[in-house]
């Protein structure tokens, strides 16, 4: 290494913060929506999913970046898949061991992290051409940017759909019609279409704020 770079230089910091705004994997790059939305009915699984994806994206980028000079180009996809799948199995076993309830809720979607386009996307676009440490940061940043969208969607879906956050009641029981009040949960929020529409609205807001992202 010819030039010495501080561990958290401005460049590395930007790699981490960029995915939260102008380089967000979901709203801007359109990656990784696949397994994202199905776990956003409640906040807790969404956060666990976001963390799992962050861990897998970060470490798979790191490992692939370490191996980048030794992987033959023709078989790189399969090598990447194997690395990612091994990491996902680790995450799955950990979830089953420590947060069994959440792992039950996530069901097949943990396995689907393997085919999440974010991971392959970051490996192909970044890790194959960069040093391990920046790749790790880039992976974590993108995973976290992805998790952020999941959490936002889950926040609204749980608040409006069930009147609670993290399973703790926010809208008081006495407000509900059944208890003589005026409030009713929005039943649509817990159904799949709400996630799509909410995501559309998030993109709308994001692009209105950040004009550079408008599509022609």
């Amino acid at each position, binding site marked *: 290494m010819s030039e010495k770079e501080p561990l958290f230089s401005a460049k590395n910091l930007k790699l981490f913060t960029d995915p939260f705004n102008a380089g967000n994997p979901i*709203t801007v790059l*359109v*990656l*990784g*929506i*696949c*397994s*994202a*939305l*199905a776990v956003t009915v409640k906040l807790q699984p969404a956060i666990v999913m976001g963390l799992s994806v962050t861990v897998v994206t970060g470490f798979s980028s790191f490992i692939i970046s370490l191996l980048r000079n030794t992987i033959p180009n023709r078989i790189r*996809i*399969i090598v990447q*898949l*194997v690395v990612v*799948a*091994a990491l*996902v*199995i680790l995450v*799955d*076993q950990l979830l089953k061991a420590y947060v069994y309830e959440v792992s039950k809720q996530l*069901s*097949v979607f943990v*396995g*689907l992290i*393997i*085919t*999440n*386009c974010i991971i*392959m996307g970051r490996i192909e676009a970044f890790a194959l051409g960069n040093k391990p440490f920046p790749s790790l940061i880039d992976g974590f940043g993108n995973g976290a940017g992805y998790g952020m969208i999941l959490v936002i969607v889950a926040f609204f879906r749980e608040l409006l759909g069930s009147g609670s956050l993290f399973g703790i009641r926010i809208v008081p029981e006495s407000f509900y019609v059944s208890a003589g009040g005026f409030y009713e949960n929005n039943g*649509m929020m817990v*159904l*799949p*279409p*709400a*996630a*799509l*529409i909410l*995501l*559309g*609205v998030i*993109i*709308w*807001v994001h*692009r*209105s704020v950040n004009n550079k992202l*408008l*599509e*022609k």
Partner: protein
Amino acid sequence: MENFINIFVQSVFINNMIFAYFLGMCSFLAVSRKVSTAMGLGIAVIFVLMITVPVNYLINKYLLQEGALSWFGDEYRDIDLGFLSFIVFIAVIAWIVQVLEMIVEKFTPALYNQLGIFLPLIAVNCAVMGASLFMQEREYSSVAEASSFGLGSGTGWMLAIVGIAAIREKMSYSKVPPALKGLGITFIVTGLMAIAFMSFSGIEIKID
């Protein structure tokens, strides 16, 4: 027979890969600008699902499940290789897609010209992996059931992508707010389509 038709109908309309589980959204959004390409990708997905789901079913049943290895000898009865299923499934899918690509290229060049570019994309399509994982989770009782599930979810996926492609083709003439243009409006329209598909829930076919 009734059972197979029900599994098929349910996986096309009720448990639609895109509208109920959001699987395969990446290619769904990327390749849904024109009806003809959407159709090509849809057919390729059906094709791959019809092969990978039954193959993975057999692998799961005779190699990975708890007690699956008992045909091998009594002492292997307690082995549970379930934790390997992710890596095995994805390897099988990648392998089948690769082989399929070669076969199609060799024997039907015309079909290859249409599907060829899509096949490599499919190896990392979440819908394909998702179908195998759902097949494992729902514990179908026979290969035929697993196949009809594979066929059904492929058909449902194709229906969705062709539908959205048709809407997007028409939408290029309408005035969408600039910030919603492209991605945003596509999500909202997909959400509306998903609401429409929800009216199918509860369908069950009875043959007397």
